[in-house]
């Protein structure tokens, strides 16, 4: 991107964006070296909500860590549930009943839609549009109500169990979900796209702003919609299939524009794809148990285990090291937002403050997941 002005590196000032700032959506601090309204250097400072979740995993047995997973990415908590359940199941060699796999996928995809809706609302808020927030929350509320019925909580779920799920879904949930799919499909074109996506001010704000090349994505390990907005066709659900995703028919939206608009469109298309996944999973839903027989206390064999799932923000990896005891020897998470944020400093250089914040919004940051 060519700058309209020559940046001066001698007359700068430091602007502390955060840790308390409306645009950082959490306690992220970005140390900005500014020349007027242009950013000369951007340096994210992390660790304000570090709660040592990974260390906590070593303190209890395997099951006791499950509630912690939801407290990292609170917007797509069920994917974190699933990722952790997958790695422990791999370690302990537990077979998951088919119905439970279907229920996992249905709930995770519902949660993904809720996460994208909230991102959409917060992104528009960053751009100064307040009203879309309420419309998105209206739809998100329907999902939360559905999930609350079967999981018992609305935000920090602890729904998955090793070898299944905590609770079976009922007919009311199924009809409710089908109604929701119909409702969101009817609202997407008129409310979300006509009112917001095609708005000239929005297009001017995010089109051709915040270029991330595919090269940069690889360099920093960016995944999820950020990478897919830069033309990298990578989704854990397709590339390293897990659960029942190979049996379902869905597309991975990829855009080659590399700008904020591309990332916006990837997420909007993913909502539609998630609806498709849920629809098919509901159609194919088999009968059977939702929980396998699992010993009370797990003692997996010694070894290294890894699982990857696709959260709303990208690829989430769980690396589990077992020493044959009843607690994990070491659990390491590879969280998507950490890598996605890492490229902020390089890309934001030379941007205007307002553009940089719009760009930051398009990365979809969830700070507790970065700090853990």
């Amino acid at each position, binding site marked *: 991107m060519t700058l309209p002005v020559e940046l001066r590196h001698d007359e700068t000032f430091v602007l502390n964006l955060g840790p308390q700032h409306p*645009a950082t959506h959490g306690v992220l601090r970005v140390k900005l070296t500014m020349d007027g309204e242009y950013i000369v250097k951007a340096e994210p400072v992390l660790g304000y909500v570090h709660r040592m979740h990974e260390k906590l995993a070593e303190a209890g047995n395997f099951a006791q860590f499950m509630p912690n997973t939801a407290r990292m990415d609170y917007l797509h908590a069920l994917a974190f549930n699933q990722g952790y359940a997958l790695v422990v199941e791999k370690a302990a060699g537990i077979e998951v009943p088919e119905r439970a796999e279907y229920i996992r996928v249905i709930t995770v995809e519902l949660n993904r839609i809720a996460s994208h809706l909230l991102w959409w609302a917060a992104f528009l808020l960053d751009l*100064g549009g307040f009203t879309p927030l309420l419309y998105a929350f209206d739809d998100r509320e329907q999902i939360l109500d559905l999930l609350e019925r079967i999981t018992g909580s609305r935000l920090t779920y602890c729904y998955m169990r090793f070898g299944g799920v905590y609770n079976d879904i009922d007919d009311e949930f199924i009809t409710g979900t089908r109604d929701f799919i119909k409702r969101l499909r009817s609202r997407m074109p008129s409310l979300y796209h006509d009112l917001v996506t095609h708005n000239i*001010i929005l297009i*001017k704000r995010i089109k051709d702003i915040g270029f991330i090349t595919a090269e940069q994505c690889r360099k920093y390990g960016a995944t999820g919609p950020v990478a897919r907005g830069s033309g990298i066709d990578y989704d854990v659900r397709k590339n390293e299939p897990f659960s029942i995703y190979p049996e379902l028919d869905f597309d991975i939206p990829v855009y080659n524009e590399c700008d904020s608009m591309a990332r916006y469109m990837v997420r909007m298309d993913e909502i539609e794809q998630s609806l498709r996944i849920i629809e098919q999973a509901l159609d194919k839903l088999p009968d059977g148990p939702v929980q396998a027989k699992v010993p009370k206390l797990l003692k997996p064999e010694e070894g290294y285990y890894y699982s990857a799932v696709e959260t709303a923000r990208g690829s989430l990896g769980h690396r589990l090291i077992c020493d044959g005891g009843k607690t994990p020897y070491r659990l390491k998470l590879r969280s998507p937002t950490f890598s996605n944020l890492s490229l902020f400093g390089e890309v934001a250089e030379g941007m205007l403050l*307002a553009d940089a*914040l719009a760009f930051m919004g398009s990365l979809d940051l969830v700070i507790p997941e970065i700090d853990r």
Partner: protein
Amino acid sequence: METSIWRPILYLVGIMAFAGLNAAYLGWCERKGAGRIQRRPGPKEVGFAGLLQPLADGIKLMTKQLMVPQGVDGIIFRVAPVIAMIPAITSMVVIPFSGNIQARAMELSVLLIFALASLGMMAVLLGGWASGNKYAIISSARAVSQNLAYEIPMLLTVISIVMISGSMNLRDIAIDQQGGFWHWNIFRFENGHFLYMWIGFIIFFICSLAETNRAPFDMAEAESELVAGYMTEYGSMGFGLFMMGEYLNIVVGACLTATLFLGGWDCPFGLTPGVWWFLLKIYVLIFTVIWVRWTYPRTQIYRLLNLSWKILIPFSLVNVLVTAALIKVF
């Protein structure tokens, strides 16, 4: 009546009451309007339909301590909110609410209002500068460049009106448009002005949005970028006065638009003209302002300046030329 001491006193009380009521209740209207647009009820707990909400807010703001942070230019910091209010209230002196409700029918009233509007910008500049906060200073710098950029097309549009009416007196301009909507400056059937005057109206309306720092041009208080802009360090009534000043600027802008383009107190279809038509017009305009704010996202500071320098100023210059040519021809 002209020489009576009661006239200035009555107008003083009347204008202060009008300004105070508007400053307080436009906040309520804004919140209620925003609520309805967002499919929620808005304020409803304090009094019937939340009508006492402005009172509660006022009491809350007034009973709070005016915090003056360290490292702040104390005098200017305290004076700036007052400066935000003064020009807005003073402008109302020359606004013709109806044929016989106007405090002073000055010859150069259009000029006076624009001079005062520029003064209002000083409040933002001083408040932001005195705060000693980086966000506040960026916000002030934005506000000044924005206001300067938008005053030019606004004044150019007004010049074409002044040429048509042949007066800079708001009262004369309004009287010139009496007799139904086809006489209003925005439509003006005589002399072919109707061909382009609506463009002038749109330019003027956009400029008045930008001049009053309203969305989508609220660069100075872009809360997701600059926290609260120039008001970041202000609390209690300092903040309250800035807010009230903002609403009063909207009222003055709407009054000016109604007088210059929509025939002032004239009835659109030949019924008895009167102050109620004027009020109806300004509140429709104010509602539009609120509606726009809660519908559109914010634009960008350099796009905002581009809009003014590259689109609005050339258009308004052509507007002035065409007006002059048409007046010469007919």
